[in-house]
């Protein structure tokens, strides 16, 4: 279908838990461009209980803004006829809490972890991972299963031809628990079995009558091989057939879309995978929302996704404080704050999650919390994005085999080429440099890393579009979605504050050469062309003791992409990166960095 000329216009919606967002893409000459967007509150909950109301409201806003008809009453007109309607309508959804799953394997660190990766990769929130060796007694597992009420269960375990008995044991536990699905008591709980092929009959005997069982290829057919795609596809299929079909209004919505509705994070994952594949680079993408933070990464051509279900900036803001600790939040704030007052502010945001910061100080605090939410989510991601032990793997990019050692994390910041941020606090930061600095502080990239943000959070819609019209998705992604911020240079090493760290030379946008000597403990911002498609040669000479990727003290020549912020030189040190312990010194440093990058309009 890709590139077919008859697609002139595309409407795509993303039904989030609070807001339904619609984008309209039109073909202008040879290329596809985003022309407008609209949004409306999601209507899954009472009193509406029909997701299509919110979709129609968002589309009506698009109609008004674009000044043309898309709806005929309560129907999206497809295909486009004259100036009315659109040729393609697609949707993603995370409404109603998204897809909540429970996964199980035999050994927690092996099939348990593989099952978790399969579910997360499909866009699910994993509520619990159960395994024979998870330290819980059988009755405790059964209790947990009954209490959780997931949308779906992924049961894995055993390599093909391996032990059948222990797989049967897990199936029996599941049957004894007889868990009920979260939405509505009137339908059977979907269960995907992706374990030992020889245990299929036994699993069917235990669960066939009690659940909606779907059997797919083993996700760990051999100890040294992971095959997540069949399980991931089955999860998508059951998500549509069972979970979505029981959510209010989705049956109707499903008849409107040209392609199955995808879980939002699944769609974002797809687009991140595609960027990495197209450019042959390592990518980390992050979407920080009100309730959850999703991290996506592609390293060594292996895709991973994690969701931190309780790290976010509104519903979950208080949990960021609980997990990170107040001191870790305060370390990013460049003015003294009273602890009691800060605690109250955070809780007041939690109980009134739709409020926004209206002063610079409130914004700075929100951005400090965002740094910690991102940092914690990234820690979780690194722990799960690991290789199989000393073996070959075939994961989500088909036909890609990569070699990895010893089950260590795949996330290597030194190899990271591009860091993409999304979600309100990053996409809508009043100054783009604020988004850049939040990402640098949270992820601590090393050597050279490009930075970008999703302009208006349309990666979900583009992800689902990429499944049917890759050309349109790619064009809109490059031109309208991704805002290139520039790059960060971060020499790895440490030295006394104020001692020489790195010299950076480049040709400035106005044709004058620039040379900047940046001292240890400082940050600097050098100009780059704002246009992300222009590249600039940069010479970087680290001092002895600092590494820019070629070894300590060795100069490197780089080609960096332009961006609206510029080239950020981060000489604050890495491995470890540390902030001054003393409050006055720390505030002085934070203020200096804010000044260097022009983060705020005045000193705070």
């Amino acid at each position, binding site marked *: 279908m890709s590139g077919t000329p008859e697609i002139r216009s595309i409407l795509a919606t993303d039904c989030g838990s609070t807001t339904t967002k619609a984008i309209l893409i039109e073909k202008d000459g040879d290329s596809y461009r985003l022309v407008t967007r609209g949004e409306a509150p999601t209507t899954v909950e009472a009193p509406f209980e029909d997701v299509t109301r919110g979709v129609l409201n968002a589309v009506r806003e698009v109609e008004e803004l674009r000044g043309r008809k898309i709806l005929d009453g309560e129907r999206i007109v497809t295909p486009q006829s004259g100036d009315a309607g659109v040729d393609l309508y697609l949707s993603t959804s995370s*409404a109603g809490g998204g897809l909540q799953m429970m996964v199980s394997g035999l050994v927690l660190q092996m099939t348990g972890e593989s099952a978790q990766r399969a579910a997360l990769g499909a866009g699910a929130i994993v509520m619990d991972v159960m395994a024979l060796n998870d330290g819980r007694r059988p009755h405790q597992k059964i209790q947990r299963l009954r209490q959780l009420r997931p949308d779906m269960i992924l049961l894995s375990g055993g390599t093909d031809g391996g032990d059948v008995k222990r797989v049967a044991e897990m199936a029996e536990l599941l049957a004894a628990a007889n868990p009920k699905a979260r939405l509505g008591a009137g339908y059977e709980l979907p269960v995907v079995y992706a374990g030992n092929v020889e245990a299929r009959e036994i699993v069917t005997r235990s669960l066939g009558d009690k659940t909606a069982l779907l059997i797919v290829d083993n996700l760990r057919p051999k100890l040294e091989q992971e095959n997540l795609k069949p399980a991931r596809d089955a999860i998508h299929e059951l998500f549509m057939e069972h979970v979505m079909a029981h959510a209010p209004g989705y049956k109707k919505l499903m008849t409107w879309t040209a392609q199955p509705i995808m879980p939002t994070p699944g769609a974002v994952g797809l687009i991140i995978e595609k960027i990495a594949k197209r450019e042959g680079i390592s990518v980390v993408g992050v979407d920080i929302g009100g309730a959850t933070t999703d991290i996506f990464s592609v390293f060594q051509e292996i895709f991973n996704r994690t969701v931190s279900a309780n790290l976010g900036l509104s519903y979950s803001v208080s949990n960021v404080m609980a997990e990170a600790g107040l001191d870790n939040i305060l370390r990013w704030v460049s003015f003294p704050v009273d602890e009691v007052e800060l605690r109250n502010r955070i809780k*007041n945001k939690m109980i009134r999650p739709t409020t926004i910061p*209206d002063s610079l100080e409130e914004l700075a605090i929100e951005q400090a919390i965002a740094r910690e939410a991102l940092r914690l989510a990234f820690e979780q991601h690194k722990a799960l994005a690991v290789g199989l032990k000393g073996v070959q793997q075939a994961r989500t990019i088909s036909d890609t085999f990569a070699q990895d050692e010893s089950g260590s994390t795949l996330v290597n910041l030194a190899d990271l080429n591009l860091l993409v941020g999304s979600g309100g606090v990053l996409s809508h930061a009043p100054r783009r440099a604020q988004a850049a600095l939040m990402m640098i502080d949270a992820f601590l990239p090393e050597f050279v890393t490009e930075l970008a943000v999703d302009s208006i959070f349309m990666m979900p819609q583009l992800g689902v579009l990429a499944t049917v019209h890759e050309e349109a998705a790619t064009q809109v992604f490059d031109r309208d979605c991704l805002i290139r911020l520039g790059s960060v240079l971060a020499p790895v090493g440490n030295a006394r504050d104020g001692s020489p760290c790195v010299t950076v030379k480049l040709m400035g946008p106005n044709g004058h050469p620039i040379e900047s000597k940046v001292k240890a403990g400082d940050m600097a911002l050098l100009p780059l062309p704002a246009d992300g498609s222009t590249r600039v040669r940069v010479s970087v000479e680290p001092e002895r003791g600092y590494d820019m990727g070629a070894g300590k003290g060795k100069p490197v020549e780089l080609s960096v992409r332009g961006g609206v912020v510029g080239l950020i030189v981060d000489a604050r040190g890495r491995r470890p990166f540390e902030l001054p312990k003393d409050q006055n010194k720390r505030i002085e440093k934070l203020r200096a960095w804010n000044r260097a990058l022009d983060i705020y309009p005045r000193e705070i």
Partner: protein
Amino acid sequence: MAHAYTPGLRVTERTTVRRERRLPLKGEVLVQKGQRVNSETVVARTMLPGNVQTVNLASALGVEPADVLSRLVKPLGSSVAAGELIAQTKALFGLMKSEARAPASGILESVSDVTGQLILREPPIPVEIDAYIEGVVAEVLEGEGVIVETPAAFIQGIFGVGGETHGPLIMAAESPDDELTVDRLSPSFAGKIVVGGAYVNHAVFKEAIRLGVRAIVVGGFDDRDLRDLLGYDLGVAITGQETFGATLLLTEGFGRIRMAERTFNLLKKLEGREAALSGATQIRAGVMRPEIVVPFDQDAPATAETSVGGMDVGSLLRCIRGEHFGKIGRITALPAKLQELGSESHARVLEADLDGVGKVILPRANVELIEA
């Protein structure tokens, strides 16, 4: 642009309150439609399936999983007592015996011929639900529960901890600015719902629990005190299951915040009346706020429910964030264009005349509308 404002919490003198009382699993409804109930009337009952215990009989007896069934001393479906013999093997003319005993009382549910595992189901657990509010059974949900209805005064809070309770309302503050202090408490408050003013601290709340107070209603509470009360930092706002002896209901939020005049005056007017109160709060999809329900005489006619309309010039509002937090005023203008805030963000704003402050520009997201 989306409707970026909070509809506001309901504080109404007279409305019809309907509360669904539903069992976690199907069971038996014990009341009939039209029946009068009070807070403590048990309206439905069920038995939750008992916990499950597993016993690996194949390894306990040293037999093949396929042979386990034939070694049971009682057939599947039988009841057994804790410690009772459930399976045994005999070898060498009965001289060598292996046996397995029940780890708990229950029913022998199943055995697996693959794993040799026995599933023993413990006795069912009874669950009862009460009516929570005084009123009339308006609807019976067959086998699941009831809907209780009553005309009542109704006040929503913003946050609470602790579960459902009931008792007469008593005022322990003269003005909505007052702090609830120990000297304002009295042993006569036992079994009552105590209304403070703007604030209560942890020590005073503990003293109230000691006196047997059922619930405290105040404007604000410090988060640091909440941590001390719970023993941990509350991460996600899902509450209602806490059991520390009394329920705490905040009408405004965290910190020392004057209780909204309207809320305070209504509670004062209702002093002495029997109220039902729930601290359960859930701020996620499907928002649940804590509440106070003060039922009226069933014969008194309820006036129609008032609702908050859209955001218009003249609408009454309350600031819910920023330097004017808690202040009340009226909307004087609704500019259509986005405006730059002090944070440099652009947002939809409104102009309001706030009591004691004067005219200010506020982001629409940072106000809530109040019923006139």
